[in-house]
């Protein structure tokens, strides 16, 4: 038996084990949230969902497979222009079909068992049970994650009672009014998943490849960064740090801050240009950019504008 076949057997056992799990054990919302995080990463699932934000309605097909080859995911737009997003252990590829191009970025180190840091959530979110219902034919339970301040969004989550997979998601503003909604209309998991759908509509080599404009950088753990965000909203902590300095002395630093659910990236890059500082948004994702000392500072996250602004204004060299 080959090594790959051995891996397959092990992963198959794990998949069967996860799939066969009845909803037993703790009924606390914290445990369900943690189980959701693991299930969304470690289980195989497939389905079609609609994403509604403002007047826009998009339909997307997702295939997520976790097996002996690692975790792979493919998102395909079913409305509008053809787009695909493929991620695996080698990185992420973003295909824009109408331009026949693909933007590629090397892998960002994944946590093998992503887990929600429940201790950190307690100070900044309240977790409440909602009602029960059905989504895409699956019995679900509603869990509401309510922020304690205006620096993060809230979430209303409908989790499959059996697998803990997320079947409906709403992003809530500070008044708990939905700003965006994701709803599966068709959903399957475990052995029902067709891994063949991971294949792109045509081989990646047939697209014009666009390499990332960013250096990959090296993951820095336990080291003091050269730049830091000094004014973080409560609950946000540094979770990842990448640093690179090119041969031409150009700087690239990527700091990732998170509160356990929301994540914000801070990019510091050498820049000779000038520009007006400002906040931009794409849907519910906000970005803030300003320049200081020949570097450009950009803060991006699926958080309110106030959050990227607060964090971005507080970014400065560690020596200051």
């Amino acid at each position, binding site marked *: *038996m080959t090594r790959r076949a051995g891996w397959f057997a092990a992963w198959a*056992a*794990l998949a*069967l*084990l*996860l*799939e066969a*799990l009845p*909803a*037993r054990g703790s009924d606390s919302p914290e445990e369900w949230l943690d189980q959701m*995080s*693991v299930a*969304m*990463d470690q289980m195989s699932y497939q389905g079609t969902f609609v994403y509604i934000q*403002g007047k*826009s309605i998009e339909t997307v097909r*997702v295939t*997520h497979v976790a097996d002996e080859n690692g975790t792979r*995911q493919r998102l395909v*737009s079913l409305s509008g222009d053809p787009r*695909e997003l493929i*991620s695996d252990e080698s*990185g*992420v590829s*973003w295909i*824009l079909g109408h*331009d026949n*191009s*693909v*933007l590629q*970025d090397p892998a*960002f180190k994944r*946590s093998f068992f*992503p887990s929600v840091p429940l201790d950190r959530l307690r100070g900044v979110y309240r977790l409440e049970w909602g009602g029960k219902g059905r989504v895409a034919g699956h019995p679900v339970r509603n869990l509401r994650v309510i922020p304690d301040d*205006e620096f993060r969004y809230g979430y209303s989550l409908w989790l499959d009672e059996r697998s803990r997979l*997320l079947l409906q998601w709403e992003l809530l*503003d500070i008044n708990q009014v939905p700003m965006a909604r994701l709803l599966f209309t068709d959903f399957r998991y475990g052995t029902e998943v067709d891994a063949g759908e991971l294949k792109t509509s045509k081989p990646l080599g047939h697209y*014009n490849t666009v*390499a990332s*404009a960013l*250096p990959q950088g*090296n993951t820095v753990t336990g080291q003091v960064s050269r730049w830091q965000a000094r004014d973080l909203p409560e609950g946000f902590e540094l979770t990842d740090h990448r640093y*690179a300095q*090119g041969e031409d002395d150009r700087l690239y630093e990527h700091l990732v801050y998170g509160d356990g*659910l929301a*994540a914000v*990236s801070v990019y510091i*890059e050498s820049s000779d*240009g000038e520009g007006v*500082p*400002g*906040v931009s*948004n*794409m*849907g*519910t*994702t906000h*970005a803030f950019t300003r320049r200081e000392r020949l570097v450009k500072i950009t803060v991006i996250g699926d958080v309110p*504008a*106030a959050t990227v602004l607060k964090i971005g204004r507080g970014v400065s060299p560690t020596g200051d």
Partner: protein
Amino acid sequence: MDGEIDQESSRFLMRRLASDDEMKATWSRYHLVRDCLRFQDGTMADVDLTGRVSQALQAEATVHRRFAGASRWLKPVGGAAVAASVALMAVLAVGPSADRVNSGDAAGMTASSGVESFTSPQSILSPTPYSNQVNLSGDGSEDRQQMNAYLLRHYQAAGARGSHGVVTATPIILIGSNRAAERPPQKDEEPKPDEQ
């Protein structure tokens, strides 16, 4: 292996496997027995799942630090639409006299992208953004391409920490969802009544 364990216990077990050598050995033996039962041709399974788990966890804690010359700066080589897609982002400028977020102008820009803008929750911060059609990307394509790269890497960073899975990736796939709306009218296209 038989599906009888509950979900909580399975997660506990997998974490325990990562650090308990004796349990790893037991787990591997059970798999070996199971594989021998399943495959009657006498071949042996080479299952070392727990070793892989340990390696993955150890790798996460590994400190990597290299400085000058350690990385190569990648350069874009093409793909106009990739470069242009972040032009869909509505841009708001920061102004000292503003006291609230106004999505007016920005909403118009964003609506053309098929991704609707919204009014952010009012901030206690001052000054807060107000809408102004400032071009964040200056002369365009290079900075836009950089913003695309930022977004893509942020998605990876957020996903790596186990956010909401598919939800984390969704904003990326929505960029450029309705490119046709951005296109200037073609010669053979009649303007719509509201454009006249």
